């Protein structure tokens, strides 16, 4: 029985790693991915985007290189998760956590995409691991590593500083009377200085906090919950059923894990429930789920195959298991991946093109000519080449010469 369980654990881990490495170039580069890959998002601090730039410099300007950062960190997250839970669980329990984490759908999905969520999760987890080690009579080297992990965590996304900040608050409450003599408190406080100065001198970051902090989605409380659950269901499907059960496993966790889990649960609600990348961090709930399994009569021999089937159903190799359950990004080949070369050929003699319709940043990834965003331009007397992404816009350009036309895109010269 034990051997079967061990085999299943390792199959789960290796299966999840494999799923992170397949179908990488199926979906189009998404608008956020293009922003991050081109290093042009003013909404976030620079470290996360620096990883993408480095990958593109080393691997060339292609989708695989762009998404390689998330693939590598998504895989490295697994041994990190193992080491984290080994701080209080035995080897077997930690392996179960790792196997469940490996098969968690959102962790697989966002390990395949060039969002900042996997990078953020990796550094937050590293920070929490080092915090626990330093608390346990950590060495001077571990203290420096904790500082660096805290600075790195704060420098990836605009909300990255929250975990180090909350841990500082928790530590100060722990140390109450002797905070001023506590090295860890000073280290955490110092680690927040660089990001505080960065945010002060880069208004785009603060603007993002205000934009995403409630008003962007303009949803009431109940609507936010419903939207959040809908997003979780779309990405996790059956794995979402484990989330309420996991709360039963949370009772025996230390305060650091309560803070970590509480924050990853809350951030989607606070910053916009429709943003799917926040679901990445829910993978941490495999920790209380595994603790619950260890305490209950339910064997991992039952749970692991179900998680495997769920992961394959949603994110299995698209050439083998494409179905109505498959994540929408992998239902079909991306439009721009299929058509960009032909469209660029049509535009090969153009220096710039005016785009009308939803001009996402992915156009700067796929299109060779310079893209001008036509939405706010006065086009009444404008001549040149127009790329129309919205079929309804074609009518005002009826006098233009059509250079290209398919189900999604028209190119007209006027």
């Amino acid at each position: 029985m034990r051997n079967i369980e061990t085999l299943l654990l390792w199959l789960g881990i290796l299966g999840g790693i494999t799923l992170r490495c397949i179908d990488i170039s199926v979906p189009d580069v998404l608008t956020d991915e293009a922003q991050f890959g081109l290093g042009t998002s003013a909404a976030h601090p620079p470290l996360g985007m620096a990883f993408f730039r480095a990958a593109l410099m080393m691997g060339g300007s292609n989708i695989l290189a762009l998404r390689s950062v998330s693939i590598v960190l998504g895989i490295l997250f697994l041994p990190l998760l193992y080491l984290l839970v080994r701080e209080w669980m035995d080897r077997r329990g930690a392996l179960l956590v790792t196997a469940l984490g490996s098969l968690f759908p959102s962790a697989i999905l966002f390990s395949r995409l060039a969002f900042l969520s996997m990078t953020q999760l990796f550094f937050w987890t590293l920070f929490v691991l080092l915090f626990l080690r330093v608390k346990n009579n950590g060495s001077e080297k571990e203290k420096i590593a904790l500082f660096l992990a805290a600075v790195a965590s704060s420098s990836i996304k605009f909300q990255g500083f929250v975990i180090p900040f909350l841990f500082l608050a928790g530590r100060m409450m722990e140390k109450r009377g002797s905070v001023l003599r506590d090295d860890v408190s000073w280290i955490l406080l110092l680690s927040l200085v660089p990001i505080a100065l960065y945010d002060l001198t880069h208004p785009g970051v603060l603007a993002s906090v205000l934009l995403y902090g409630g008003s962007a989605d303009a949803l009431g409380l109940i609507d936010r919950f419903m939207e959040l659950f809908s997003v979780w269901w779309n990405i996790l499907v059956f794995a979402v059923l484990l989330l309420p059960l996991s709360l039963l496993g949370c009772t025996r966790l230390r305060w650091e894990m309560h803070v970590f889990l509480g924050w990853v649960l809350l951030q989607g609600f606070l910053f916009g429930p429709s943003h799917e990348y926040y679901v990445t961090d829910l993978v941490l709930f495999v920790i209380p789920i595994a603790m619950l399994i260890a305490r209950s009569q339910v064997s991992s021999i039952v749970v692991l195959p179900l998680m495997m089937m769920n992961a394959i159903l949603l994110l299995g190799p698209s050439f083998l298991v494409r179905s109505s359950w498959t994540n929408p990004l992998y239902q079909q080949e991306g439009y721009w991946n299929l058509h960009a070369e032909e469209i660029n050929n049509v535009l090969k003699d153009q220096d710039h093109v005016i785009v009308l319709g939803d001009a996402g940043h992915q156009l700067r990834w796929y299109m060779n000519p310079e893209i001008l965003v036509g939405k706010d331009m006065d086009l009444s007397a404008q001549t040149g080449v127009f790329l129309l992404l919205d079929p309804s816009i074609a009518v005002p350009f009826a006098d233009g010469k059509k250079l290209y036309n398919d189900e999604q895109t028209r190119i007209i010269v006027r």
Partner: protein
Amino acid sequence: MKRKGLSVCIILTIFFSIPSLLLLPNIAPFLSSDVRSAAPKAISMLRREGAWIVNAELDHIEHHEEEICFVWTYRYRSRTTNSPPALRTTCIHEKH
């Protein structure tokens, strides 16, 4: 030395803070309410030129008699292009 770790962290804090400290003088003009109210209009003017705001970095702000001018460094970046920086100016007429 028992607190060597903390000493290293202090040095690293200063090192990591230097790039932002050098940018602090750029923030000073935004203490003016006129500049703060003119800034979104300046960005709208860039949008009317078809520019990508993410490719624009504020270089400096100029105060003239009846207008505030924002001078931007515009650098178009795509997968295949890294255009040389070009200066663009958007001026907002001040109401008195």
